[in-house]
């Protein structure tokens, strides 16, 4: 067997597990990608939210600031020259103007002395605000001022103010102040639909908190906050992640400078809330994915184990089948339910059934019906208990005869101890069975003989050499029962050489100190019958080989020896028959191209016997024209080599051209790749030659028959040309008869030639022979010459009978021929038909077919000339022909 290829093969279980692992990685990767992108989406959404919220805050702030400014300008206008004495109704008028503004705005006018001259605040209690920043700032010269967060001293509300410097006559006259409470941002906050953790706010550029919703605990200085230290210097608007320094909540902060003011709008969106749904979704996904991953891993492991076990089993089965094919026994396998599912080719060969015809329970169809019940019972019992199965039954062969087989099967168990398969063998025990039957019969006969007291027993007096036989002994040896033959008379029946052999055996026994002796001796009876007798003897106590007494028994073992001999011969015959049939076997290892063959194999190829040889050795022996017929490396490796081929070889030892016929089969490995080629080779040269001889003969015969038919047809046409069938019948029959006689003469010589003498004698057989003389040297006629000679002689004979020398009582005919050399040394045949003593002759008046046959056909077929002379004493026909025709159709 070839080594397995070194390259690792992709087994199904590796592929399957690889595929599952790839799926696993895809799932993990996909999930990770999904979660990551979702995370960033969430984050971006929060940032966008914060950014857009800050924009809304900024827009509102800007709007509020602008409104406040316009309002304050209007207040300034309303006040008149003396702000301490505003016109009556001004307060109500202003209140009306701002009533639609958010943030519950209230207006205060404080003169330079600190007195509040006008207010829209109904709960106003007079207080001095000159120390307040919002007053001090405008007093110091700022046209407008936005305050930081203030806690109202009146009602503890969180408010902020926008104040305007009022000048009269170029002098600071006081401040107009508008306050907003936190409702301003609350509305914005609500319109943005933010959650409780998110805030909106306004900051002043110096870091002071102006307003915030939800409400802060109080005023705050945020100038050291990261917004002012990092982000604001970088960009006027943006967003960033932050952990609130006040409440520790994670937020995304969107900020934006409010154009035209010194305010910064803030929107802090709690990312915790936004990410809470992200995390909820993430955990939801993971809750699905993680079990799926675990399940996949488990499935991969399970699949791997299953497929690996499957691959191993298939490998084992393929291996098993190769072994099973190599076994001489019949091998089969069955499923655990007892249905047979596979047989080796030995079973099909023996039974003559086709593959598949015995599957399931169909195998019972080739079991002898008498043996089937027992076989079925035991098979069922073995299946039920799982113990080995053993039974003997007769199996029908392809020729319809039954032979005894011993069937055995054992269960194969898997790792869990369950039966996965039954493997069975059927061994041909027909010969043993027959032998055993006969041995048993022979033993039975022996027992019977002993029981009947018919034992052939003897007692020997060694000193006197006197033997005392039992009647059965004498019967066995063919003496009268009561006779007392001498020892020598018994021994005279020993076959030549047996006396010396028994002497040697007993001498050896004595040397060993044995008292017992048992030997099988061949005897020859006077009539030539051969018998094998087992002689067992024992010295009586106190006796020695040279003195005392011995007793013994003789048993006829001829039958047993005959059976043993038969067995030995039949084996030998088998070996000899294979050898004699000229069949040689060979085995080709496809991977290495090494051929191993039987002894006969090397002999057929004309090579010295050897263990093995490379296939290239044979390529030079096959004749070049047949090279492509044989298998080559490629067709062997692909398994496409033609199974049955015939080719010619030039034997290296004798130089003979021989025809070989080769039949072979492939053995494949479990992947279907051919491993080995088994074949038989036979020398079929003789069969080939016989076949081609036969073909040649058949062809030649067909040709001759057709040519002959053409001649018969020509004869018939010519004969009946100028006459009726009735009138021409006799002439036609005679002419055909002449053709027939020439044939007989030719057939006697294998259609090579015919003696002139024989042809003429046959063609004149119907003429009175005593008036005809035939004479000349031995001369062989070719088939063509023989036929035209027979026809011509027939014509001449018929003519002589009717009109010539044989038409009266006295005429004679002589037919002579001779071969002579002329002056140039060329040989010429001269043949003469001469009639004498007949009535006077005259040339015929019309030329008939007879004369055509004589003058033209005869001349032409002999390549010579014919002269017909009508002399008064009789007709003379002379044919003279050169024996080596100079021109037989040579091309010019």
């Amino acid at each position: 067997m070839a080594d397995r290829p070194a390259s690792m093969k992709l087994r199904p279980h590796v592929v399957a597990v690889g595929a599952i692992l790839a799926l696993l990685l895809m799932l993990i990767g996909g999930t990770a990608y999904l979660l990551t992108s979702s995370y960033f989406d969430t984050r971006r959404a929060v940032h966008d939210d914060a950014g857009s919220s800050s924009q809304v805050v900024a827009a509102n702030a800007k709007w509020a600031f602008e409104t406040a400014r316009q309002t304050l300008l209007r207040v300034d206008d309303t006040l008149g020259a003396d702000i301490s004495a505003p016109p009556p109704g001004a307060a109500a008028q202003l209140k009306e103007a701002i009533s639609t503004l958010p943030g519950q705005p209230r207006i205060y006018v404080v003169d330079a002395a600190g007195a509040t001259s006008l207010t829209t605040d109904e709960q106003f209690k007079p207080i001095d605000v000159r120390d307040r920043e919002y007053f001090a700032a405008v007093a110091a010269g700022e046209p407008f001022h936005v305050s930081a967060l203030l806690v109202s001293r009146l009602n503890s509300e969180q408010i902020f103010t926008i104040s305007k410097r009022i000048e009269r006559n170029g002098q600071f006259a006081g401040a107009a102040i508008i306050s907003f409470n936190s409702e301003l941002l609350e509305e914005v906050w609500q319109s943005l639909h933010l959650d409780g953790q998110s805030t909106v706010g306004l900051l002043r550029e110096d870091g002071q908190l102006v307003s915030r919703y939800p409400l802060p605990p109080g005023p705050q200085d945020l100038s050291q906050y990261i917004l002012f230290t990092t982000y604001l210097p970088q960009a006027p608007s943006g967003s960033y992640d932050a952990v609130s320094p006040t409440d520790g909540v994670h937020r995304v902060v969107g900020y934006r400078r409010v154009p035209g003011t010194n305010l910064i709008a803030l929107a802090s969106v709690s990312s915790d809330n936004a990410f809470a749904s992200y995390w909820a979704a993430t955990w939801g996904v993971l809750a699905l994915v993680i079990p799926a991953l675990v399940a996949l891993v488990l499935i991969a492991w399970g699949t791997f184990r299953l497929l690996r076990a499957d691959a191993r089993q298939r490998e084992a089965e393929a291996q098993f089948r190769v072994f099973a094919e190599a076994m001489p026994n019949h091998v089969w396998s069955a499923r655990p339910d007892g249905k047979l599912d596979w047989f080796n080719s030995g079973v099909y060969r023996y039974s003559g059934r086709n593959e598949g015809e015995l599957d399931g329970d169909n195998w019972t169809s080739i079991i002898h019906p008498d043996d089937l019940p027992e076989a079925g019972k035991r098979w069922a019992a073995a299946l039920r208990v799982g113990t080995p199965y053993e039974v003997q039954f007769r199996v029908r062969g392809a020729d319809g005869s039954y032979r005894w087989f011993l069937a055995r099967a054992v269960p194969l168990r898997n790792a869990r101890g369950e039966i996965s398969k039954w493997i069975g063998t059927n061994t041909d025990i027909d010969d043993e069975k027959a032998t055993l039957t006969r041995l048993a019969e022979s033993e039975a006969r022996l027992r019977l003989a002993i029981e009947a007291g018919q034992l052939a027993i003897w007692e020997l007096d060694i000193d006197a050499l006197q033997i005392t036989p039992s009647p059965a002994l004498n019967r066995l040896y063919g003496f009268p029962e009561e006779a007392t033959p001498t020892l020598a008379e018994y021994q005279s029946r020993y076959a030549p050489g047996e006396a010396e052999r028994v002497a040697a055996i007993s001498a050896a026994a004595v040397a060993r100190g044995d008292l017992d002796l048992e030997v099988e001796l061949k005897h020859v009876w006077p009539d030539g019958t051969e018998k094998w007798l087992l002689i067992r003897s024992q010295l009586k106590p106190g006796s020695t080989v040279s003195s005392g007494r011995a007793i013994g028994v003789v048993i006829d073992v001829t039958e047993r020896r005959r059976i043993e001999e038969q067995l030995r011969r039949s084996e030998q015959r088998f070996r000899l028959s294979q050898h004699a049939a000229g069949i040689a076997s060979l085995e080709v290892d496809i991977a290495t191209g090494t051929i191993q063959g039987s002894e006969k194999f090397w002999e057929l190829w004309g090579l010295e016997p050897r263990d093995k040889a490379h296939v290239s050795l044979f390529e030079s022996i096959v004749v070049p024209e047949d090279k492509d017929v044989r298998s080559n490396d490629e067709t062997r490796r692909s398994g496409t080599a033609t199974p049955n081929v015939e080719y010619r070889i030039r034997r290296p030892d004798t130089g003979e051209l021989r025809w070989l016929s080769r039949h072979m089969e492939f053995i494949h490995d479990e992947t279907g790749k051919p491993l080995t080629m088994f074949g038989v080779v036979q020398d079929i040269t003789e069969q080939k030659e016989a076949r081609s001889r036969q073909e040649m003969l058949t062809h030649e015969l067909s040709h001759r028959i057709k040519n002959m038919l053409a001649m018969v047809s020509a004869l018939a046409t010519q004969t009946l040309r100028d006459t009726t069938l009735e009138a021409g019948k006799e002439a036609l029959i005679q002419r055909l008869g002449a053709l027939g006689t020439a044939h007989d003469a030719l057939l006697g010589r294998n259609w090579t030639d015919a003696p002139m003498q024989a042809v003429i004698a046959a063609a004149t057989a119907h003429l009175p022979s005593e008036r005809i003389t035939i004479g000349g040297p031995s001369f062989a006629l070719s088939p063509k010459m023989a036929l035209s000679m027979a026809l011509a002689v027939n014509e001449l004979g018929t003519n002589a009978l009717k009109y010539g020398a044989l038409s009266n009582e006295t005429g004679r005919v002589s037919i002579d021929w001779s071969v002579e050399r002329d002056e140039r040394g060329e040989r010429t045949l001269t043949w003469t038909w001469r009639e004498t003593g007949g009535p006077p002759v005259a040339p015929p008046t019309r030329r008939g077919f007879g004369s055509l046959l004589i003058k033209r056909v005869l001349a032409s077929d002999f390549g010579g000339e014919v002269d017909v002379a009508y002399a008064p004493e009789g007709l003379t026909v002379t044919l003279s022909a050169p024996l080596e025709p100079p021109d037989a159709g040579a091309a010019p």
Partner: protein
Amino acid sequence: MTTMHNTTVLVVEDEALLLYSIADELRDQGFDVVEARNAAEALRALEANPEIRLLFTDVDMPGTMDGLALAAAVRHRWPPIKIIVTSGKGRPAPSALPDGAFIPKPYTSIAISEVFRRLGG
């Protein structure tokens, strides 16, 4: 028979009986017949008789040139001559029959004149 009148046919057959027999029959049908027993004689006859219009030849003949070789030579040297081949050995390959005309042995003169007519003679 009028169509055969004055048509000259060359019969080539080495078996004398067959040669004379078929020659006589063809004459009876109105042909003028020239006889030859082998290819060499046939070629000599063709050179001497320019009026030959039909060659009827056996395949199997002694000598270096058989009927098929003769047929090929005639087709080469005298293209207008129609050629009918006969044999007892079975039909030759179509490529060996110049006019595709073959009559197996045994044959009749009627068969020959019919084939000749079919060839347009």
